[in-house]
């Protein structure tokens, strides 16, 4: 494949999916860093164009997830990023998203584990179907279905409790 042809492939990839990657990043980081993340993701795609699967969106979003984590690791924009990027794998209760107008829902999301939240948001906000979400998270579709079911149930339980203003359940684990 000629360089020109590869360049065309990359441009098509960018045109088709950069908006989705940007939206993914914007939900997790400030706008300036989100733009950088988009750029970085497609740089990686350029270097590994042969590895991009036929359905590229899950691959690109998984890549964006890693890039965001790496940006934190590299210490760039440390102060600003630490608060926002911690949403990727933070402990339950630490997540808040000012952009979510439904505050009980935002609180309920905050009580989920980072993995549960990432899975739900990939499906609900990034509009991946289960097959794509499984690819993005690197698990089988069967595993994904189980995890998704449990994550939904935990979100529903949290939301129900929050809206009835019940105190959070205290577990032995949380007391340690």
């Amino acid at each position, binding site marked *: 494949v000629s*360089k020109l042809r590869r360049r065309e492939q*990359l*441009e098509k990839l*960018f*045109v088709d999916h*950069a*908006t989705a990657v*940007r*939206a993914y990043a*914007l*939900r997790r980081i400030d706008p300036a860093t989100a*733009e950088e993340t*988009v*750029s970085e993701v*497609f*740089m*990686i795609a*350029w*270097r*590994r164009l042969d590895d991009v699967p036929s359905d590229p969106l899950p*691959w690109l979003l*998984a*890549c964006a*997830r*890693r890039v965001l984590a*790496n940006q*934190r*690791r*590299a210490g*760039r924009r440390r102060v600003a990023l*630490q608060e926002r*990027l*911690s949403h*990727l*794998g*933070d*402990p339950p209760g630490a997540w808040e998203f000012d*952009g*979510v*107008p*439904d505050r009980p*829902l*935002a609180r309920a999301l905050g009580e989920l*584990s*980072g993995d549960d939240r990432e899975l*739900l*948001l990939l499906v*609900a*906000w990034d509009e991946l179907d289960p097959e794509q979400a499984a690819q*993005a*998270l*690197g698990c*089988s579709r069967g*595993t994904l279905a189980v*995890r998704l079911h449990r994550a*939904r*149930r935990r*979100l*529903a339980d949290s*939301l129900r409790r929050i809206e009835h203003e019940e105190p959070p359940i205290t577990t032995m684990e949380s007391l340690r």
Partner: protein
Amino acid sequence: MSDVFERLRAANPVSDHTQPDLDEFLRRLDERTAEESSPIRTDKADVSGWRRARPSVRSRLIAASTIAVAIVLAIAAVVSHTGGGISLVQRAYAATDSAGGIVYYVTSTRSSSGFGARSSSSESRAQVWRSELRSRRLETSTTELHNGPAQQGGSYEEVDQRVAGGELSSTYSPPPRNTVFKGFLAFRGSTSPESVNCRRSPSCAVTTEDPVLALRELYAAGRLHEAGHARLNGKTLTVLEGNGAARTQPSVRFIRLNPSSRILVDPKTGAPVELITHYGRRLGALTSTTIFHTYKHLALTPQTERLLSFRAHPHARLECVLALHCSDRESHGLDIGHT
């Protein structure tokens, strides 16, 4: 539950679906690749004999230049952050950055604590390959607990590593030895003692701390300063000294550790040669000495990439969500699983 999901969909906070600027991206791409040769084979006539030999040399050159550029960029980033010239601390920080390639190091670490009948010591030798995204570690360790079992030890190979719920979990073979580094993301990959929670092993608390990550944490926190020179094995090395953040020993939570570190680095490259850390000044406080026998950067090539791959193992639960450093087995064959 479906109502909850619909409610979640409706709460999507990003309504801005502006298409990112393709031209701007292409300009940045061209800038990034300006100093690299094209990684693409051209469509010229097939000269198979020539072509078989040429790409390996070429790809090595490309990879080497990529690493060189990345290291320069890393140094430049540090310089711009501080606004000054490149100090040795900054150079040392850049030297611990895998910078698009792989940092490979062989270390031996000796830790000791306590005194008299309550003393214990451990020695380990580790071989580590570390890229930006993942690492692999082989370790041989020996522990002497004077108030417990006379000696424990063995050789361990990391066969699994995953990040979930803010924890970095590593599984070593042969079992039993699992380490969970809590707050992995919060510490940007650091395995500082306060974030280590060892399971099934009484001796893996501080000794499992990766010295390179510990160094990066110190460098990034700006806690080190140059403190003269020292001679070691006939070489003149620069001394860096500083105090780490106070932390709590994981196995005994009421003990506060106040680590102070002394690092010998190569003044030309900033590569670490020796790291000595004292965790407090009280009698019998833990002291750890790590010697770097080998420390080098490897270009990331298909060959070196394999060094990061874990071997097939029944206890492995690999997370490999991106094909950047994943073998086919890792990226397609195994589920993440949950604990």
